[in-house]
């Protein structure tokens, strides 16, 4: 039963990893961009929520009302102001610029908030749980996280395949030059994609902040988890990313059970195994 519980908990945490990963997947799909600062933005959002909660006394999840629009606006501005200039045939500029961004965000947070641990308090949501089976307790928070992840991915799928904006995303991703011939301004399309990505990041960041202690340095670790979920699941497939997150979560859970220090390591090793034996991931839909 212990192992069953570990797997269940791993599945649920996979939802959080899928939230980390969904934004990454979206951006890569639309503009072949990988934002190295992705994890740091997730952490920055957690700090933003922290500030808003302190100022307004709102519940962290309620703070999303402010956090999501602010994050989306920042994403739009970042893409139009900075990242659009880096896009082209060379992979170096976007990589190096977002790397620089990562350094700036981490140190900015460090400067403002110090290296102290913070946490978002969510009250009963954090501590409450129900018993599924003897020995298997399902926490309200992990369950909510997982359900939200599914909702977000379903929402993104709907947006991508059933709306005009999604059509614009797909067309621009296929052939940005011909997309211009359709009257699409690719600068704006990319900016909306980044805004959407940061909207998802906002949700991920708040859940992260509720779930664990956070400090300015944990960004890269979140980026890596998100990235591993995307690769394990397969590029270009958001549901695959959810599966990837679950696989990662379960692997980490099993690792932690074997040796508390081996949690992250177990996840990385499973990732490397997938890379070795199924490099395109479990359910790939596009080329890297």
């Amino acid at each position, binding site marked *: 039963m212990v192992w069953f519980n570990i797997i269940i908990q791993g599945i649920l945490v996979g939802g959080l990893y899928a939230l980390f990963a969904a934004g990454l997947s979206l951006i890569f799909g639309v503009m*072949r961009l990988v934002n190295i600062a992705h994890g740091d933005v997730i952490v920055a959002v957690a700090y933003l929520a922290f500030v808003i909660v302190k100022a307004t006394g709102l519940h962290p999840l309620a703070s999303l009302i402010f956090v999501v629009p602010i994050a989306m606006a920042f994403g739009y501005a970042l893409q139009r102001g900075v990242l659009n200039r880096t896009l082209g045939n060379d992979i170096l500029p976007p990589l190096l610029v977002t790397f620089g961004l990562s350094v700036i965000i981490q140190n*900015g947070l460090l*400067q403002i908030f110090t290296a102290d641990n913070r946490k978002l308090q969510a009250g009963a949501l954090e501590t409450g749980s129900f018993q599924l089976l003897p020995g298997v307790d399902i926490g309200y928070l992990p369950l909510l996280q997982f359900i939200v992840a599914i909702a977000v991915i379903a929402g993104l799928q709907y947006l991508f395949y059933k709306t005009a904006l999604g059509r614009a995303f797909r067309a621009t991703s296929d052939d940005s030059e011909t997309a211009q011939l359709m009257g699409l301004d690719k600068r704006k399309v990319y900016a909306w994609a980044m805004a959407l990505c940061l909207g998802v990041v906002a949700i991920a960041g708040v859940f992260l902040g509720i779930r664990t202690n956070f400090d300015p340095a944990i960004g890269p670790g979140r980026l*890596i988890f998100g990235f591993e979920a995307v690769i394990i699941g397969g590029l270009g497939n958001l549901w695959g990313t959810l599966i990837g997150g679950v696989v990662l979560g379960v692997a980490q859970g099993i690792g932690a059970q074997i040796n508390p220090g081996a949690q992250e390591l177990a996840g990385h090793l499973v990732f*490397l195994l997938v890379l070795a034996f199924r490099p395109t991931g479990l359910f790939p839909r596009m080329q890297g």
Partner: protein
Amino acid sequence: MSLTYSRSTKTSRIAAVFAIVLAALLIAAPFWGSTATQQLLGQMMVYIALASLWNLLAGYTGLVSVGQQAYVGLGVYIMVSVTIYLGIHPYFAIPLAGLAAALISMPVAKLVFRLQGAYFAIGTWVVAEVFRLIAAQLGSVGLGGGSGTSIPGPVMQALAVNKFWREASIYWLALVLGLGALALVYGLLRSRIGLALTAIRDSAVASGSLGVNIDRIKYAVYVTAAAMTGMVGSLIALQKIRVSPNAAFSVNDYTAIVIFIVVIGGIGTIEGPIIGTIVYFLLREYFADLGAIYLMILGVIAITMMLVAPKGIWGYVAQRWQINLFPTGYVVKEDKR
């Protein structure tokens, strides 16, 4: 009219003379410089080496690795473990670290090369994290685990007779590795492999169709860079004496700063890493007190550079004034008779 061709220009020949003078000064540093000076120069040499190697990977071969700290840390831990457990002299531990790094980089390359572009970059980062986490588990093997360990006194003393010569030895080793890395990169780029690399840099597709075996070259360059980086890592262990997984595999110290140096100095040029290292250490000298703000400033400078002058300081200089201190091409001149 008859044409002669040579590999050097007047500028590069003048620069070569300066370089010889500079090299002599550097070699003599233990005799005119203080401990602090030697340590500073030693650190600069380390970064010139790491930056040149990263530049070889990213600027010439198109392999943007964000995980070279894997081999730095590997070198650190090889130095610590073979000197403590196998009683090997630190001097010999350095090439051993290079060998170990080369061997380990081979299966790593096979794995990470399955990824492209930015995903490749993050993949290399994951590998570095794996190494770091494994190192942190090594407490039971007497290597200090998470909190690290130190190189024992007797090992350090085996380096040389007294403190003066020990410092000098470590400094000279750094000098050898720094200049060695430059020589390696320069030699490689002057060779036929270098021509292939420049072709790859300009167009992978075109060069592939000309028969350049891109995959083999990428693999060879990756392994070579790993080996050299491992050696530099083993030297860093001697410089710092105290080692820990987080410090040895630090992405900030061995990737972020290296990237900064190469971007500022000039990516895809041999001179760039040298210029970048000098700029970095100057900035560090005056602004490091600002702590987190200093690092933010570095980040802003790097981003601005990438957007405004992506070829870096040396790239701009070389293009504007047509200078090449490390000539890798040929110059055709009319024979004035």
